[in-house]
């Protein structure tokens, strides 16, 4: 079977691939793989469209200048890479509500979008509060044996497991 058109790879093969990608990121770009600061920079770029250059002087944007940087390009690459892969393996499909959600909560599009907005808000707010996400802390930070990242990764999963269990076993159960 053609590896490139296979719908799924073993999670171990995928993980080894991502680990090797982190070698390249450190070696060639002196950077750990991460995704959430790209959202901060994008938010700043969007704010600047509305409010102009003074946005750049906000304390947080002095640390993370609203600009297109290496990590922003990485996240854009994730979009293109996943899109190309989904198209090439015949997995691309416009879907409004994911399967498990639909089975438990019904096919209502507005409900799912509002819930995703709320979840996204907490993800964006929490990632910046913790200083990283499942990539920056969860993979790149833990592999450097950073104390902050091991604590954060544990917190991501503790919070995530409790929330998912409450949603699926209590609220929608």
């Amino acid at each position, binding site marked *: 079977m053609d590896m490139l058109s296979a719908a*799924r790879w073993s999670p171990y093969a995928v993980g080894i691939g991502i680990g090797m990608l982190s070698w390249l990121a450190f070696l060639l770009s002196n950077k750990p793989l991460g995704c959430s600061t790209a959202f901060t920079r994008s938010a*700043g770029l969007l704010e600047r469209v509305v409010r102009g250059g003074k946005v750049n002087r906000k304390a947080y944007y002095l640390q993370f200048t609203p600009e297109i940087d290496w990590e922003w390009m990485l996240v854009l690459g994730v979009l293109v*890479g996943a*899109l190309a892969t989904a198209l090439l393996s015949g997995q691309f499909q416009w879907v409004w509500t994911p399967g498990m959600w639909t089975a438990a909560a019904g096919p209502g599009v507005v409900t799912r979008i509002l819930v995703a907005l709320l*979840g996204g808000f907490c993800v964006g707010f929490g990632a910046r*509060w913790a200083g990283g996400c499942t990539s920056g802390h969860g993979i790149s930070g833990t592999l450097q*044996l950073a104390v902050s990242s091991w604590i954060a990764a544990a917190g991501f999963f503790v*919070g995530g497991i409790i929330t998912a269990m409450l*949603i699926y076993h209590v609220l929608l159960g």
Partner: protein
Amino acid sequence: MLNTLHKKKNIQLPLGFALGIAFGFLLQKGGATYYDVIIGQLLLTDFTVLKIMLAAMITGMVGIHLLVTFNLAQLHPKPGAWGATIPGALIFGVGFGILGYCPGTVVGAVGHGALDALFGGVPGILLGAATFAALYPRLMPLLKRGDFGDVTFPRLFGINPWFVVVPVVLVVLALFYVLESAGL
């Protein structure tokens, strides 16, 4: 270290893009860009996400520490503080459980056509990041509380990193063996 290469912005931006394409390819092939796979992990019924993350962690850990040993890379551990790391991670976790994607996989999910990621997840994360930027000056005292800096476990214990790397790799491999034996 390849310092000259690191400073060439006209090479670094395309390089970031290329590495991102590979990252997106792998996340999609692993199924990590799917809500059902991520929620399955959080409900402890599907261990795909944990297997991907831990395999990436140990592979990366061995390689990065070799690169550092041969002076080809330097570590960039993130700083932490009790007031930042724990509440932030828990808020993220709550969002992770509600959204069913994280900042990297939500973008990959848009790539395979998930419209809840495009119209809910992505704008939600942008709004959350913008709100954090707005509240940052007021949150600052809390974020600094219990600051422990960018310490790593080897530095904390004052030992050679390999005395941590090797046991962590062995524990993760043992965990994989247990997961596979249990049919998870």
